[in-house]
Protein backbone atom coordinates (compact mmCIF):
# COMPACT_ATOMS: atom_id res chain seq x y z
CA UNK A 1 0.00 0.00 0.00
CA UNK A 2 1.53 3.25 -1.07
CA UNK A 3 0.00 5.26 1.71
CA UNK A 4 1.76 8.51 0.92
CA UNK A 5 1.81 8.15 -2.85
CA UNK A 6 -1.97 8.06 -2.85
CA UNK A 7 -2.23 11.22 -0.80
CA UNK A 8 0.19 13.05 -3.04
CA UNK A 9 -0.75 11.76 -6.44
CA UNK A 10 -3.82 13.95 -6.80
CA UNK A 11 -1.98 17.11 -5.85
CA UNK A 12 0.81 16.45 -8.30
CA UNK A 13 -1.67 15.48 -10.99
CA UNK A 14 -3.59 18.74 -10.59
CA UNK A 15 -0.37 20.72 -10.79
CA UNK A 16 0.67 18.84 -13.93
CA UNK A 17 -2.67 19.68 -15.56
CA UNK A 18 -2.18 23.30 -14.61
CA UNK A 19 1.29 23.23 -16.11
CA UNK A 20 -0.01 21.77 -19.35
CA UNK A 21 -2.67 24.43 -19.52
CA UNK A 22 -0.22 27.27 -18.93
CA UNK A 23 2.17 25.88 -21.52
CA UNK A 24 -0.56 25.73 -24.18
CA UNK A 25 -2.01 29.07 -23.17
CA UNK A 26 1.40 30.70 -23.24
CA UNK A 27 2.01 29.44 -26.78
CA UNK A 28 -1.04 31.31 -28.01
CA UNK A 29 0.25 34.62 -26.65
CA UNK A 30 2.75 36.93 -28.28
CA UNK A 31 3.08 39.43 -31.11
CA UNK A 32 1.23 36.95 -33.29
CA UNK A 33 -1.88 35.60 -31.56
CA UNK A 34 -2.46 31.97 -32.36
CA UNK A 35 -5.83 30.38 -31.55
CA UNK A 36 -5.80 27.83 -28.76
CA UNK A 37 -7.24 25.05 -30.93
CA UNK A 38 -4.64 25.65 -33.65
CA UNK A 39 -1.93 25.45 -31.04
CA UNK A 40 -3.18 22.12 -29.77
CA UNK A 41 -3.50 20.82 -33.34
CA UNK A 42 0.01 21.91 -34.30
CA UNK A 43 1.49 20.13 -31.31
CA UNK A 44 -0.59 16.95 -31.59
CA UNK A 45 0.28 16.78 -35.27
CA UNK A 46 3.90 16.22 -34.27
CA UNK A 47 2.93 12.94 -32.62
CA UNK A 48 3.22 10.65 -35.64
CA UNK A 49 0.34 8.31 -34.83
CA UNK A 50 -2.09 11.21 -34.56
CA UNK A 51 -1.06 13.27 -37.57
CA UNK A 52 -3.36 11.48 -39.99
CA UNK A 53 -6.40 12.27 -37.87
CA UNK A 54 -5.75 15.95 -37.47
CA UNK A 55 -7.04 18.48 -39.97
CA UNK A 56 -4.26 21.00 -40.43
CA UNK A 57 -6.17 22.93 -43.05
CA UNK A 58 -6.47 26.64 -42.45
CA UNK A 59 -3.45 26.88 -40.20
CA UNK A 60 -0.80 29.25 -41.48
CA UNK A 61 2.67 27.83 -42.19
CA UNK A 62 4.19 30.76 -40.31
CA UNK A 63 2.13 29.93 -37.26
CA UNK A 64 3.34 26.36 -37.30
CA UNK A 65 6.90 27.66 -37.44
CA UNK A 66 6.31 30.08 -34.56
CA UNK A 67 4.76 27.41 -32.37
CA UNK A 68 7.28 24.66 -33.02
CA UNK A 69 10.51 26.57 -33.41
CA UNK A 70 10.12 29.70 -31.35
CA UNK A 71 7.55 29.48 -28.63
CA UNK A 72 7.54 25.80 -27.71
CA UNK A 73 11.30 25.46 -27.17
CA UNK A 74 11.35 28.70 -25.24
CA UNK A 75 8.49 27.64 -22.98
CA UNK A 76 9.87 24.15 -22.44
CA UNK A 77 13.25 25.61 -21.56
CA UNK A 78 11.55 27.87 -19.03
CA UNK A 79 9.84 24.77 -17.57
CA UNK A 80 13.11 22.90 -17.23
CA UNK A 81 14.94 25.83 -15.70
CA UNK A 82 12.06 26.62 -13.34
CA UNK A 83 11.90 23.01 -12.18
CA UNK A 84 15.59 22.76 -11.59
CA UNK A 85 15.92 26.06 -9.76
CA UNK A 86 13.01 25.42 -7.46
CA UNK A 87 14.05 21.82 -6.73
CA UNK A 88 17.57 22.98 -5.95
CA UNK A 89 16.17 25.73 -3.71
CA UNK A 90 14.04 23.25 -1.79
CA UNK A 91 16.97 20.90 -1.29
CA UNK A 92 19.35 23.68 -0.24
CA UNK A 93 16.90 25.16 2.25
CA UNK A 94 16.64 21.74 3.88
CA UNK A 95 20.34 20.93 3.83
CA UNK A 96 21.32 24.37 5.14
CA UNK A 97 18.30 24.59 7.46
CA UNK A 98 18.23 28.19 6.34
CA UNK A 99 15.20 29.94 4.83
CA UNK A 100 17.41 32.34 2.87
CA UNK A 101 19.18 29.58 0.98
CA UNK A 102 18.54 29.67 -2.76
CA UNK A 103 20.15 27.85 -5.71
CA UNK A 104 22.86 30.49 -5.81
CA UNK A 105 24.17 30.26 -2.22
CA UNK A 106 27.20 28.31 -3.29
CA UNK A 107 28.24 30.97 -5.77
CA UNK A 108 26.71 29.37 -8.86
CA UNK A 109 25.30 32.67 -10.08
CA UNK A 110 28.41 34.80 -9.76
CA UNK A 111 30.60 32.02 -11.10
CA UNK A 112 28.34 31.67 -14.11
CA UNK A 113 28.15 35.44 -14.58
CA UNK A 114 31.93 35.64 -14.46
CA UNK A 115 32.25 32.95 -17.10
CA UNK A 116 29.54 34.53 -19.24
CA UNK A 117 31.14 37.97 -18.99
CA UNK A 118 34.41 36.58 -20.29
CA UNK A 119 32.47 34.86 -23.05
CA UNK A 120 30.68 38.07 -24.01
CA UNK A 121 33.86 40.14 -23.96
CA UNK A 122 35.64 37.65 -26.17
CA UNK A 123 32.65 37.72 -28.54
CA UNK A 124 32.06 34.03 -28.18
CA UNK A 125 28.48 34.37 -29.30
CA UNK A 126 28.87 31.99 -32.22
CA UNK A 127 29.05 28.74 -30.34
CA UNK A 128 28.83 25.17 -31.47
CA UNK A 129 25.61 23.59 -32.69
CA UNK A 130 23.44 26.32 -31.25
CA UNK A 131 24.78 25.94 -27.75
CA UNK A 132 26.70 29.14 -27.19
CA UNK A 133 30.25 29.15 -25.95
CA UNK A 134 29.12 31.81 -23.51
CA UNK A 135 26.81 29.18 -22.03
CA UNK A 136 29.65 26.71 -21.77
CA UNK A 137 31.86 29.28 -20.05
CA UNK A 138 29.01 30.13 -17.69
CA UNK A 139 28.54 26.46 -16.88
CA UNK A 140 32.26 26.04 -16.24
CA UNK A 141 32.39 29.17 -14.09
CA UNK A 142 29.43 27.98 -12.04
CA UNK A 143 30.90 24.53 -11.42
CA UNK A 144 34.37 25.83 -10.67
CA UNK A 145 33.04 28.34 -8.14
CA UNK A 146 30.94 25.74 -6.35
CA UNK A 147 33.90 23.41 -6.29
CA UNK A 148 36.06 26.10 -4.65
CA UNK A 149 33.35 27.03 -2.13
CA UNK A 150 32.75 23.37 -1.30
CA UNK A 151 36.43 22.73 -0.67
CA UNK A 152 36.86 25.91 1.36
CA UNK A 153 34.09 24.73 3.65
CA UNK A 154 35.37 21.20 3.96
CA UNK A 155 37.23 20.15 7.09
CA UNK A 156 38.55 16.64 6.66
CA UNK A 157 35.62 14.57 5.50
CA UNK A 158 33.00 16.86 7.04
CA UNK A 159 31.39 19.91 5.51
CA UNK A 160 30.05 22.69 7.67
CA UNK A 161 26.95 24.24 6.17
CA UNK A 162 27.65 27.55 7.89
CA UNK A 163 31.10 27.68 6.29
CA UNK A 164 29.54 26.96 2.91
CA UNK A 165 27.18 29.90 3.28
CA UNK A 166 30.01 32.21 4.33
CA UNK A 167 32.45 30.98 1.68
CA UNK A 168 29.65 31.30 -0.90
CA UNK A 169 29.00 34.92 0.03
CA UNK A 170 32.66 35.87 -0.05
CA UNK A 171 33.33 34.10 -3.36
CA UNK A 172 30.27 35.81 -4.82
CA UNK A 173 31.40 39.28 -3.89
CA UNK A 174 34.93 38.57 -5.11
CA UNK A 175 33.62 37.45 -8.49
CA UNK A 176 31.13 40.31 -8.65
CA UNK A 177 33.90 42.84 -8.23
CA UNK A 178 35.77 41.04 -10.97
CA UNK A 179 32.73 41.38 -13.22
CA UNK A 180 32.33 45.06 -12.32
CA UNK A 181 35.96 45.65 -13.17
CA UNK A 182 35.57 43.99 -16.57
CA UNK A 183 32.45 46.05 -17.17
CA UNK A 184 34.24 49.33 -16.43
CA UNK A 185 36.92 48.54 -18.99
CA UNK A 186 34.44 47.37 -21.59
CA UNK A 187 31.67 49.95 -21.73
CA UNK A 188 30.47 48.78 -25.12
CA UNK A 189 29.38 45.39 -23.85
CA UNK A 190 27.76 46.72 -20.70
CA UNK A 191 24.19 46.19 -21.86
CA UNK A 192 24.85 42.63 -22.99
CA UNK A 193 26.46 41.67 -19.68
CA UNK A 194 23.71 43.25 -17.62
CA UNK A 195 20.97 41.60 -19.62
CA UNK A 196 22.68 38.22 -19.26
CA UNK A 197 22.80 38.64 -15.50
CA UNK A 198 19.09 39.42 -15.41
CA UNK A 199 18.24 36.20 -17.19
CA UNK A 200 16.28 35.57 -20.37
CA UNK A 201 14.91 32.81 -22.54
CA UNK A 202 15.12 34.95 -25.62
CA UNK A 203 16.83 32.87 -28.27
CA UNK A 204 15.96 29.56 -26.70
CA UNK A 205 16.29 26.66 -29.12
CA UNK A 206 15.83 22.92 -29.26
CA UNK A 207 19.55 22.29 -29.01
CA UNK A 208 19.65 23.87 -25.57
CA UNK A 209 16.78 21.67 -24.49
CA UNK A 210 18.38 18.54 -25.85
CA UNK A 211 21.66 19.37 -24.13
CA UNK A 212 20.23 19.98 -20.69
CA UNK A 213 17.29 17.58 -20.82
CA UNK A 214 19.16 14.45 -19.77
CA UNK A 215 21.14 15.97 -16.89
CA UNK A 216 18.01 17.82 -15.78
CA UNK A 217 15.76 14.77 -15.75
CA UNK A 218 18.32 12.40 -14.25
CA UNK A 219 19.41 14.92 -11.61
CA UNK A 220 15.82 15.76 -10.71
CA UNK A 221 14.71 12.14 -10.36
CA UNK A 222 17.83 11.37 -8.35
CA UNK A 223 17.31 14.29 -5.94
CA UNK A 224 13.68 13.43 -5.33
CA UNK A 225 14.71 10.02 -3.97
CA UNK A 226 16.33 11.81 -1.03
CA UNK A 227 13.05 13.03 0.44
CA UNK A 228 13.20 10.89 3.57
CA UNK A 229 16.83 11.80 4.21
CA UNK A 230 15.97 15.49 3.94
CA UNK A 231 13.04 15.08 6.32
CA UNK A 232 15.35 13.50 8.86
CA UNK A 233 18.08 16.10 8.33
CA UNK A 234 15.79 19.07 8.96
CA UNK A 235 14.98 17.52 12.35
CA UNK A 236 18.68 17.92 13.16
CA UNK A 237 21.78 16.26 11.78
CA UNK A 238 22.45 14.21 14.91
CA UNK A 239 18.89 12.92 15.00
CA UNK A 240 19.14 12.07 11.31
CA UNK A 241 22.27 10.04 11.85
CA UNK A 242 20.65 8.15 14.70
CA UNK A 243 17.74 7.38 12.41
CA UNK A 244 20.23 5.69 10.11
CA UNK A 245 20.98 8.49 7.65
CA UNK A 246 24.58 8.79 6.55
CA UNK A 247 24.39 12.55 6.97
CA UNK A 248 27.78 13.58 5.65
CA UNK A 249 27.48 11.47 2.53
CA UNK A 250 23.91 12.63 1.93
CA UNK A 251 24.92 16.27 2.25
CA UNK A 252 27.77 15.80 -0.21
CA UNK A 253 25.68 13.94 -2.76
CA UNK A 254 22.86 16.47 -2.60
CA UNK A 255 25.14 19.51 -2.71
CA UNK A 256 26.99 18.16 -5.74
CA UNK A 257 23.86 17.11 -7.63
CA UNK A 258 22.03 20.33 -6.81
CA UNK A 259 24.94 22.57 -7.82
CA UNK A 260 25.20 20.68 -11.07
CA UNK A 261 21.50 21.26 -11.77
CA UNK A 262 21.82 24.93 -10.86
CA UNK A 263 24.81 25.29 -13.17
CA UNK A 264 22.84 23.67 -16.01
CA UNK A 265 19.95 26.04 -15.42
CA UNK A 266 22.06 29.16 -15.21
CA UNK A 267 24.11 28.32 -18.29
CA UNK A 268 21.07 28.37 -20.60
CA UNK A 269 19.05 31.14 -19.01
CA UNK A 270 21.32 33.54 -17.18
CA UNK A 271 20.64 34.35 -13.58
CA UNK A 272 16.96 34.15 -12.77
CA UNK A 273 16.60 35.03 -9.15
CA UNK A 274 13.72 34.38 -6.80
CA UNK A 275 12.33 31.20 -8.38
CA UNK A 276 14.49 28.96 -6.23
CA UNK A 277 13.76 31.02 -3.15
CA UNK A 278 10.04 31.57 -3.18
CA UNK A 279 8.58 28.55 -4.95
CA UNK A 280 9.90 26.20 -2.23
CA UNK A 281 8.63 28.53 0.49
CA UNK A 282 5.29 28.91 -1.18
CA UNK A 283 4.67 25.16 -1.17
CA UNK A 284 6.13 24.71 2.29
CA UNK A 285 3.62 27.23 3.59
CA UNK A 286 0.76 25.47 1.86
CA UNK A 287 1.73 21.79 2.25
CA UNK A 288 4.07 21.66 5.25
CA UNK A 289 7.65 20.47 5.40
CA UNK A 290 7.34 16.88 4.19
CA UNK A 291 9.88 16.56 1.39
CA UNK A 292 8.17 13.46 0.01
CA UNK A 293 5.56 15.83 -1.40
CA UNK A 294 7.59 19.04 -1.36
CA UNK A 295 10.26 17.85 -3.79
CA UNK A 296 7.97 16.65 -6.61
CA UNK A 297 5.62 19.56 -6.12
CA UNK A 298 8.38 22.13 -6.34
CA UNK A 299 9.55 20.55 -9.58
CA UNK A 300 6.14 21.11 -11.20
CA UNK A 301 5.46 24.36 -9.35
CA UNK A 302 8.77 25.88 -10.40
CA UNK A 303 7.95 25.11 -14.01
CA UNK A 304 4.52 26.72 -13.74
CA UNK A 305 5.91 29.81 -12.04
CA UNK A 306 8.64 30.38 -14.59
CA UNK A 307 6.36 29.75 -17.59
CA UNK A 308 4.00 32.42 -16.28
CA UNK A 309 6.82 34.86 -15.58
CA UNK A 310 8.45 34.32 -18.96
CA UNK A 311 5.13 34.74 -20.73
CA UNK A 312 4.68 38.06 -18.99
CA UNK A 313 8.27 38.99 -19.81
CA UNK A 314 7.72 38.61 -23.53
CA UNK A 315 4.16 39.90 -23.82
CA UNK A 316 3.56 42.57 -21.22
CA UNK A 317 5.21 45.38 -23.22
CA UNK A 318 4.52 45.51 -26.93
CA UNK A 319 7.63 44.58 -28.84
CA UNK A 320 9.98 45.02 -25.90
CA UNK A 321 11.14 42.07 -23.94
CA UNK A 322 11.71 42.49 -20.20
CA UNK A 323 14.39 40.29 -18.60
CA UNK A 324 12.53 37.48 -16.91
CA UNK A 325 14.55 37.91 -13.70
CA UNK A 326 12.86 41.26 -13.21
CA UNK A 327 9.43 39.69 -13.63
CA UNK A 328 10.13 36.87 -11.18
CA UNK A 329 10.94 39.42 -8.50
CA UNK A 330 8.05 41.73 -9.33
CA UNK A 331 5.53 38.84 -9.35
CA UNK A 332 7.03 36.71 -6.67
CA UNK A 333 8.05 39.34 -4.16
CA UNK A 334 4.69 40.82 -3.17
CA UNK A 335 2.96 37.43 -3.27
CA UNK A 336 5.59 36.02 -1.01
CA UNK A 337 5.34 38.95 1.41
CA UNK A 338 1.58 38.42 1.53
CA UNK A 339 2.02 34.75 2.40
CA UNK A 340 4.65 35.61 4.97
CA UNK A 341 2.38 38.09 6.65
CA UNK A 342 -0.60 35.74 6.56
CA UNK A 343 1.17 32.71 7.95
CA UNK A 344 3.50 34.42 10.37
CA UNK A 345 7.12 33.55 10.87
CA UNK A 346 6.80 30.27 12.67
CA UNK A 347 6.13 28.02 9.71
CA UNK A 348 8.97 29.44 7.66
CA UNK A 349 11.62 26.86 8.53
Amino acid at each position, binding site marked *: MNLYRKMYRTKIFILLLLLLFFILFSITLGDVKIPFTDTVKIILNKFGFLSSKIDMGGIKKSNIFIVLNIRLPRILLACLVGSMLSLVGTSYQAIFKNPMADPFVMGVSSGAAFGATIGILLHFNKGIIGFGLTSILAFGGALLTTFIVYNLARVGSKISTTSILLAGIVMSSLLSSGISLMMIFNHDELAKIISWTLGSFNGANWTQIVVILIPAVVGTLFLTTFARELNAIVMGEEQA*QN*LGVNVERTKKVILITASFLAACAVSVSGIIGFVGLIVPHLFRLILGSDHRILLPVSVVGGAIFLVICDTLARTILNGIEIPVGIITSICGGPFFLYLLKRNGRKKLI
Partner: protein
Amino acid sequence: MKSIVGINKLSFKYDKADILKHISLDVEQGSFLSILGPNGSGKTTLLKNVCNLLKPHNGSILIDEKDIEKIKYKELAQIIAVVHQGTDVQFDFSVFDVVMMGRFPYLKRFQSEGKEDVEIVENAMKSTSIWELREKSINEISGGERQRVLIARALTQQPKVLLLDEPISHLDIKYQIEILDLCKRLNKEQNITVITTLHDINMASRYSDYILLLEEGRIREMDTPEKVLTEKNIEDVYGIKVDLIKRNDNERPIIIPKNM
Protein backbone atom coordinates in the same frame (compact mmCIF):
# COMPACT_ATOMS: atom_id res chain seq x y z
CA MET B 1 23.32 -12.03 31.04
CA LYS B 2 24.29 -10.94 27.56
CA SER B 3 26.11 -7.65 27.17
CA ILE B 4 24.34 -5.40 24.64
CA VAL B 5 26.70 -2.44 24.97
CA GLY B 6 30.30 -3.15 25.85
CA ILE B 7 32.78 -0.33 26.30
CA ASN B 8 36.46 -1.14 26.54
CA LYS B 9 39.05 1.42 27.74
CA LEU B 10 37.34 4.27 25.95
CA SER B 11 38.98 7.69 25.95
CA PHE B 12 37.64 10.80 24.24
CA LYS B 13 39.13 14.25 23.75
CA TYR B 14 37.71 17.53 22.48
CA ASP B 15 40.79 19.23 21.06
CA LYS B 16 43.23 18.60 23.87
CA ALA B 17 40.86 18.42 26.80
CA ASP B 18 40.26 14.87 27.99
CA ILE B 19 36.53 14.41 28.42
CA LEU B 20 36.37 10.65 28.99
CA LYS B 21 39.21 8.61 30.42
CA HIS B 22 39.54 4.83 30.37
CA ILE B 23 35.86 4.00 30.52
CA SER B 24 35.17 0.29 30.59
CA LEU B 25 31.76 -1.14 31.28
CA ASP B 26 29.17 -3.63 30.14
CA VAL B 27 25.45 -3.00 29.93
CA GLU B 28 23.29 -6.09 30.29
CA GLN B 29 20.54 -6.59 27.77
CA GLY B 30 17.22 -5.60 29.28
CA SER B 31 18.61 -3.44 32.06
CA PHE B 32 17.83 0.16 32.95
CA LEU B 33 21.00 2.20 33.36
CA SER B 34 21.15 5.83 34.43
CA ILE B 35 24.27 7.89 33.91
CA LEU B 36 24.76 10.46 36.65
CA GLY B 37 27.41 13.07 37.21
CA PRO B 38 27.83 16.83 37.52
CA ASN B 39 27.78 19.16 34.52
CA GLY B 40 30.87 18.56 32.40
CA SER B 41 31.51 15.09 33.78
CA GLY B 42 31.07 13.59 30.32
CA LYS B 43 27.57 12.07 30.48
CA THR B 44 26.37 13.29 27.11
CA THR B 45 29.77 12.70 25.50
CA LEU B 46 29.64 9.09 26.62
CA LEU B 47 26.14 8.70 25.23
CA LYS B 48 27.22 10.20 21.89
CA ASN B 49 30.10 7.76 21.68
CA VAL B 50 27.73 4.87 22.21
CA CYS B 51 25.47 5.99 19.34
CA ASN B 52 28.40 6.73 17.00
CA LEU B 53 27.88 10.49 16.86
CA LEU B 54 31.37 10.83 18.29
CA LYS B 55 34.30 8.55 17.66
CA PRO B 56 36.49 7.52 20.61
CA HIS B 57 40.20 8.36 20.42
CA ASN B 58 41.13 5.18 22.16
CA GLY B 59 39.34 2.02 23.10
CA SER B 60 36.45 0.28 21.48
CA ILE B 61 32.69 -0.05 21.71
CA LEU B 62 30.82 -3.25 21.03
CA ILE B 63 27.15 -3.06 20.16
CA ASP B 64 25.37 -6.40 20.28
CA GLU B 65 28.85 -7.96 20.25
CA LYS B 66 29.89 -6.19 17.04
CA ASP B 67 32.48 -3.43 16.76
CA ILE B 68 30.53 -0.17 16.33
CA GLU B 69 33.00 0.96 13.62
CA LYS B 70 31.91 -1.95 11.47
CA ILE B 71 28.16 -1.43 11.78
CA LYS B 72 26.41 0.44 8.96
CA TYR B 73 24.33 3.52 9.78
CA LYS B 74 20.99 1.88 9.04
CA GLU B 75 21.98 -1.31 10.82
CA LEU B 76 23.01 0.63 13.93
CA ALA B 77 19.70 2.53 13.85
CA GLN B 78 17.92 -0.83 13.97
CA ILE B 79 19.72 -1.66 17.22
CA ILE B 80 20.02 1.71 18.96
CA ALA B 81 17.41 4.46 18.97
CA VAL B 82 18.22 7.83 20.48
CA VAL B 83 15.97 10.46 22.02
CA HIS B 84 17.94 13.68 21.83
CA GLN B 85 17.95 16.58 24.20
CA GLY B 86 16.39 19.87 23.11
CA THR B 87 13.61 18.70 20.86
CA ASP B 88 12.95 21.99 19.17
CA VAL B 89 11.46 21.29 15.77
CA GLN B 90 11.26 24.27 13.46
CA PHE B 91 9.81 22.45 10.50
CA ASP B 92 6.17 21.69 10.14
CA PHE B 93 5.57 17.93 10.29
CA SER B 94 2.56 16.06 11.57
CA VAL B 95 3.11 13.91 14.65
CA PHE B 96 2.39 10.83 12.54
CA ASP B 97 5.05 11.75 9.98
CA VAL B 98 7.63 12.36 12.69
CA VAL B 99 6.99 8.93 14.20
CA MET B 100 7.09 7.37 10.72
CA MET B 101 10.65 8.69 10.32
CA GLY B 102 11.64 5.92 12.71
CA ARG B 103 11.05 3.43 9.90
CA PHE B 104 13.88 4.96 7.88
CA PRO B 105 16.46 2.28 8.73
CA TYR B 106 14.13 -0.43 7.41
CA LEU B 107 13.18 1.18 4.10
CA LYS B 108 15.17 0.89 0.91
CA ARG B 109 15.70 3.97 -1.22
CA PHE B 110 12.90 3.26 -3.69
CA GLN B 111 10.58 1.54 -1.24
CA SER B 112 7.64 3.47 0.15
CA GLU B 113 6.12 3.10 3.57
CA GLY B 114 3.85 0.06 3.60
CA LYS B 115 1.02 -1.38 5.62
CA GLU B 116 3.38 -3.05 8.06
CA ASP B 117 5.16 0.24 8.72
CA VAL B 118 1.87 1.96 9.40
CA GLU B 119 0.96 -0.78 11.89
CA ILE B 120 4.26 -0.46 13.68
CA VAL B 121 3.83 3.30 13.87
CA GLU B 122 0.29 2.93 15.16
CA ASN B 123 1.37 0.49 17.88
CA ALA B 124 4.25 2.71 18.96
CA MET B 125 1.95 5.72 19.13
CA LYS B 126 -0.67 3.82 21.10
CA SER B 127 1.81 2.47 23.62
CA THR B 128 3.06 6.01 24.20
CA SER B 129 -0.52 7.39 24.28
CA ILE B 130 -0.08 9.85 21.42
CA TRP B 131 -2.32 8.22 18.82
CA GLU B 132 -4.87 11.00 19.32
CA LEU B 133 -2.24 13.58 18.42
CA ARG B 134 -1.39 11.98 15.07
CA GLU B 135 -2.72 14.74 12.86
CA LYS B 136 -1.43 17.64 14.91
CA SER B 137 1.67 19.53 13.93
CA ILE B 138 4.75 18.71 15.94
CA ASN B 139 4.90 22.43 16.73
CA GLU B 140 1.53 22.67 18.43
CA ILE B 141 1.96 20.06 21.16
CA SER B 142 3.44 20.43 24.65
CA GLY B 143 6.99 19.58 25.68
CA GLY B 144 5.92 16.40 27.45
CA GLU B 145 3.90 15.26 24.46
CA ARG B 146 6.78 16.02 22.13
CA GLN B 147 9.10 13.91 24.26
CA ARG B 148 6.64 11.03 23.94
CA VAL B 149 6.48 11.54 20.17
CA LEU B 150 10.25 11.16 19.99
CA ILE B 151 10.09 8.05 22.17
CA ALA B 152 7.41 6.65 19.87
CA ARG B 153 9.64 7.39 16.90
CA ALA B 154 12.48 5.58 18.67
CA LEU B 155 10.17 2.59 19.23
CA THR B 156 9.32 2.31 15.54
CA GLN B 157 13.03 1.70 15.00
CA GLN B 158 12.33 -1.53 16.92
CA PRO B 159 15.57 -1.09 18.82
CA LYS B 160 17.25 -3.27 21.38
CA VAL B 161 18.65 -0.21 23.12
CA LEU B 162 16.96 3.11 23.84
CA LEU B 163 19.36 5.97 24.59
CA LEU B 164 17.95 9.11 26.15
CA ASP B 165 19.81 12.34 26.81
CA GLU B 166 18.29 14.24 29.75
CA PRO B 167 14.76 13.23 28.77
CA ILE B 168 13.12 15.03 31.68
CA SER B 169 15.28 18.11 32.17
CA HIS B 170 12.73 20.69 31.00
CA LEU B 171 9.52 18.96 32.04
CA ASP B 172 7.35 19.47 35.10
CA ILE B 173 7.11 16.74 37.75
CA LYS B 174 4.01 15.13 36.29
CA TYR B 175 5.58 14.74 32.86
CA GLN B 176 8.88 13.64 34.43
CA ILE B 177 7.13 10.71 36.11
CA GLU B 178 5.10 10.01 32.98
CA ILE B 179 8.16 9.82 30.73
CA LEU B 180 10.22 7.69 33.10
CA ASP B 181 7.25 5.40 33.85
CA LEU B 182 6.92 4.94 30.10
CA CYS B 183 10.62 4.10 29.73
CA LYS B 184 10.39 1.65 32.61
CA ARG B 185 7.33 -0.01 31.11
CA LEU B 186 9.00 -0.39 27.70
CA ASN B 187 12.05 -1.73 29.51
CA LYS B 188 10.01 -4.36 31.33
CA GLU B 189 7.43 -5.27 28.69
CA GLN B 190 9.57 -5.19 25.55
CA ASN B 191 12.92 -5.99 27.17
CA ILE B 192 14.43 -2.83 25.64
CA THR B 193 17.66 -1.82 27.31
CA VAL B 194 17.34 1.77 28.52
CA ILE B 195 20.39 3.98 28.95
CA THR B 196 19.66 7.53 30.03
CA THR B 197 21.58 10.49 31.34
CA LEU B 198 19.86 12.23 34.23
CA HIS B 199 20.41 15.20 36.49
CA ASP B 200 17.86 14.14 39.05
CA ILE B 201 19.54 11.69 41.41
CA ASN B 202 16.29 10.67 43.10
CA MET B 203 14.63 9.85 39.79
CA ALA B 204 17.65 7.79 38.81
CA SER B 205 17.41 5.94 42.12
CA ARG B 206 13.72 5.31 41.66
CA TYR B 207 13.85 3.85 38.15
CA SER B 208 17.29 2.37 37.51
CA ASP B 209 18.61 -1.15 37.84
CA TYR B 210 22.09 0.31 37.66
CA ILE B 211 23.60 3.73 38.06
CA LEU B 212 26.82 4.86 36.45
CA LEU B 213 28.33 7.74 38.39
CA LEU B 214 30.81 9.79 36.37
CA GLU B 215 33.40 12.04 37.95
CA GLU B 216 35.48 14.23 35.62
CA GLY B 217 35.31 11.74 32.79
CA ARG B 218 36.08 8.68 34.87
CA ILE B 219 33.83 6.03 36.30
CA ARG B 220 33.40 6.70 40.00
CA GLU B 221 31.20 3.68 40.44
CA MET B 222 28.75 1.58 38.49
CA ASP B 223 26.40 -0.61 40.45
CA THR B 224 22.90 -0.79 41.89
CA PRO B 225 21.41 2.47 43.20
CA GLU B 226 21.84 1.30 46.82
CA LYS B 227 25.55 0.80 46.34
CA VAL B 228 26.29 3.88 44.23
CA LEU B 229 24.21 6.43 46.07
CA THR B 230 26.16 6.92 49.27
CA GLU B 231 26.74 10.14 51.19
CA LYS B 232 30.44 9.88 50.45
CA ASN B 233 30.09 9.29 46.70
CA ILE B 234 27.74 12.23 46.32
CA GLU B 235 29.85 14.55 48.43
CA ASP B 236 33.00 13.61 46.53
CA VAL B 237 31.47 13.86 43.08
CA TYR B 238 28.98 16.73 43.41
CA GLY B 239 30.63 18.55 46.34
CA ILE B 240 27.49 18.76 48.44
CA LYS B 241 26.60 17.10 51.75
CA VAL B 242 23.40 15.06 51.68
CA ASP B 243 21.29 12.88 53.91
CA LEU B 244 20.22 9.51 52.55
CA ILE B 245 16.70 8.53 53.41
CA LYS B 246 14.87 5.24 52.96
CA ARG B 247 11.27 5.05 54.04
CA ASN B 248 11.51 1.27 54.27
CA ASP B 249 13.89 -1.49 53.34
CA ASN B 250 12.24 -2.26 50.01
CA GLU B 251 12.45 1.26 48.77
CA ARG B 252 15.26 2.92 46.88
CA PRO B 253 17.28 5.56 48.69
CA ILE B 254 16.49 9.22 48.14
CA ILE B 255 18.81 12.07 48.89
CA ILE B 256 18.10 15.39 50.58
CA PRO B 257 20.76 18.10 50.64
CA LYS B 258 21.75 19.03 54.19
CA ASN B 259 20.80 22.43 55.49
CA MET B 260 23.39 25.15 55.05
